[in-house]
């Protein structure tokens, strides 16, 4: 099985536990967090994850977190630009 690496950007409500929620879902759904940049003032998280599973499986679960307002697949954005 191939490992896929994806970059996501999440816009979130700034609840104290929102980062835990996101990381828990990533781990439980089978994604390893490789890199992340967290801006608590802006409520923005950029995260690089790696998994054998398709990224839509993580994105759809992250979108269900009440405090996550938006999940953006940065790979798709890059693809769109290069196209």
């Amino acid at each position: 099985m191939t490992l896929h690496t994806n970059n996501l950007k999440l816009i979130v409500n700034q609840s104290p536990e929102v980062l835990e929620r996101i990381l828990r879902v990533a781990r439980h759904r089978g994604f390893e967090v490789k890199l992340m940049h967290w801006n608590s003032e802006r409520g923005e998280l950029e995260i690089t994850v790696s998994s054998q599973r398709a990224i839509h499986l993580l994105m759809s679960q992250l979108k269900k977190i009440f405090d996550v307002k938006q999940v953006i697949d940065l790979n798709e954005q890059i693809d769109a630009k290069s196209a």
Partner: protein
Amino acid sequence: MTAELVTDLTNNTKATTMRGADLLVSYLKKEGVDTVFGYPGGAIMPVYDALYDGGLKHVLCRHEQGAAFAALGYARASGNVGVCIATSGPGATNLITGLADAYMDSVPVVAITGQVTSAVIGTDAFQEMDVLGMSLSCTKHSFMVQNKDELASVLQQAFSIAKSGRPGPVLVDIPKDIQLADIEAILETSTVDEIASYDEAQIAQAIELIQQAKKPILYVGGGVGMANAVDELQHFVDTTGIPSVTTLKGIGTIANTKPYALGMLGMHGTKAGNLCVQESDLLIVMGARFDDRVTGRLESFAANAKVLHIDIDPAEINKLRASDLSIQGDLIKIIPALEVPLNIQDWQQYCSELKDKYRWDYNAPYRSIYAPKLLSQLSEQLPRKSVMSCDVGQHQMWVAQHVNFTNPRNHLSSSGLGTMGFGLPAGIGARYARPNDEPVIVVSGDGSFMMNVQELGTIKREQLNVKIVLIDNQRLGMVRQWQQLFFEERYSETILTDNPDFVTLASAFDIEAKTITLQDEVQPALDEMLNSKGAYLLHVRINEADNVWPLVPPGASNADMMENV
């Protein structure tokens, strides 16, 4: 604050000041909650003080897990939000299994927990536990109230989240100082989020898929009942004549008496249901999620069928099985839009022949009691609106197979989590959800029953008319069955010949009880139980060798069901 004042505040739209604990009770009443289930303790004492004369019915369960399952049973049997209350630390940790159960089965529950005073959170104070942290994996959402001024809006959000979209449990952890603080607030009731509307073009595509199919089959899950779309689905089934199967949670959505209703599918599903699903060319999935107990080996599940998947939760679409077409939205609106006449007589006839060929055989040419037959007899005797609450194991599968339900709210079964100990407290909760002329029957096994047996105390305290059918094979039967079939008959820790005397146990709680062991005793015993005035425990001894059939072995295709070996 006096009870009269609190009552008055319930209807007040102006900002008023009251203790946080009184605010909670006032809010629950304003929200329309009539009954809550719980257990007091140190960090929730202000709330219990407010409950003392707050005008809200509180049911004291005898363990917080019992309170959580009672709230679940109440929610499932009524369609409303169930509420449970516990103290900090052990009180809250004891709720966790119930919340996990509600999460797996998408049940709207709001759990209120006391927390130690804000100033000492994080100091390992007495009965302190990071309940918010513990709740992350087993709730739809959770809050720890951090500021007294957010309490009212947090409660409102908790109910809104529990009910909206795909329902689920929400936990609200309230530090003791906030329960005691004077709070000025306006209480506003929860709202339900609007469900995103689907694209009309998808409906047209779906109809095309359905009309092109020669062998379509409906695979119905719990989502149809939760969308209140049972009538719409039955109408759809009547109009289209489409054959159907249901999941464990979907049982009751389509009556087994409908000509092409093939019952439950999956590991202990009907042979006709599983074979027809395997042969279908279009699987119409409504409010279901391709659980492994349904699909068997996923790669071989309805391998030649296209998939039309309709669900409220986009995360379930393409999660385990890619769909050819999916519609995300409200089933109560989508189902009627898909009604089209179909020309599938050959397929209907085939399904109907299999249904007849593999119908249940209740012939039991021996004296000992055959539980499936007993449940079938009980099913015929019960009024349509009865509620049956099960535990987990062989008896649970027998109920799923042999009792005819006409609404999913009448069948309470821990489906996703499979929690032993669910049945008795869930039945207690259901008793409060339904009028007295609708019987509540708990069907349990000797293993499961002992897991929350303390709730007999709740039945006694509240004088509840709950009937209990305890099917006793002196074994942890389902595990024993698997040990027999797949672990070389090495019966590790599944032999319960040292069970207590259940009739004596019931009598200690003033519950009438009787033991039966022979088939001849079944009918009079069922009559006696159903005609009894209050709680009743019917202890049914069965042979430990009786197994649940048919069975899809682990890792096998649903086409390869084992039968009585």
